[in-house]
């Protein structure tokens, strides 16, 4: 199982690769991804698949809570927090 830091860094690298709206220096684990539209709605759909891939299981889209994809920190807390 990957460590918390490894998972967050994997997600950070994914965001950097997909979004043209943020640089390596600007993107931290608590950077707002949706409010600033660093990620578009299509990115979020892809990111959901990426999170499922890292986690190794699918999750119920209806059960995703508002705010879950606000930052890399909140993604980790929502989908990996209790498991690691």
């Amino acid at each position, binding site marked *: 199982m990957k460590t918390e830091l490894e998972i967050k860094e994997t997600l950070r690298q994914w965001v950097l690769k997909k979004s043209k709206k943020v640089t390596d220096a600007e993107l931290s684990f608590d950077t707002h991804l*949706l409010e600033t539209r660093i990620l*578009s*709605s*299509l990115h979020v759909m892809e990111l959901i698949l990426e999170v499922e891939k890292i986690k190794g299981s699918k999750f119920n*889209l209806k059960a995703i809570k508002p705010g879950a994809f606000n930052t890399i920190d909140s993604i980790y807390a929502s989908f990996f927090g209790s498991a690691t």
Partner: protein
Amino acid sequence: MSEIKFTEIPGYKWIPNGQSNLSGSILELFKSLDAMFLKIASAAQAREFYFPPFIQAAELNKLDYFKSFPHLITFPVALDQNDAKNLEKFTEGPRFGDGKVHLTEIDKVCDCLTPAACYHFYIHFQNQDLQEPLHLTTRANCFRRELYYKPLQRQWSFNMREIVCIGPQDHVRGFVKKYRDIVTEKLAKLDLGISWEVATDPFFNPESNPKFIMQQLDPVKHEMIFNKDLSIGSTNFHKDYFGESFNIKYQGETATSACIAFGLERWLFAIITRYGTNPAHWPMKEIQNG
């Protein structure tokens, strides 16, 4: 609150294809409510527009509207006149029977009937670089196909008054907050017992639509809910969605937008449910002074 007997409302007639005829007292109530919304809009010196009922399909396509809301859209259609025989075929055919028109070939469909009042503004101001924030208002006859219709609550054709702001993010965010407070105060005066609730737009196949997922993750729509289940209006913070879709800039950066929407017929329903079908009991003074 008791159920409305619609036949008891003076000046009201329901047409079962999802439309309402208004005259007399209920038309006065309709006009007074719209005047109240206009007064609310004037707090931001909103510029009023009139828009025609058609929107070019090519413009709605920029929003991916046909994928997101195919169940709601209504198209104006006409018989194809490129082939003169087509009209003859139509006139010589059954033309009408079994409650429906028997169309022959129809011309290409390039337009839609307005599904939401504020779309007209983003289309109108597309490709502009704004130097000042815009405050705008319009009332449009909107059309949304539904599986069933209910008088004043769920109509194929209904009136929507909107107040729209386009500009920089902080300004637009402030606009939404200010107007939510103003509307909350008006609603309290009318004692309609409204609650504000987070909502999403009625997407087709929502779970496979990224826009729906986004609205779920980052709520941008708040509805004014009457009687626990009827939305009579909403605030919508679009962020730069329309700015990007229609290339609207604010001082060189993609513009942000938001709108406050009021469904006129649903407001009539709320007032009449709360105060009864007798116009003497309607809060006309509170509305007119609003």
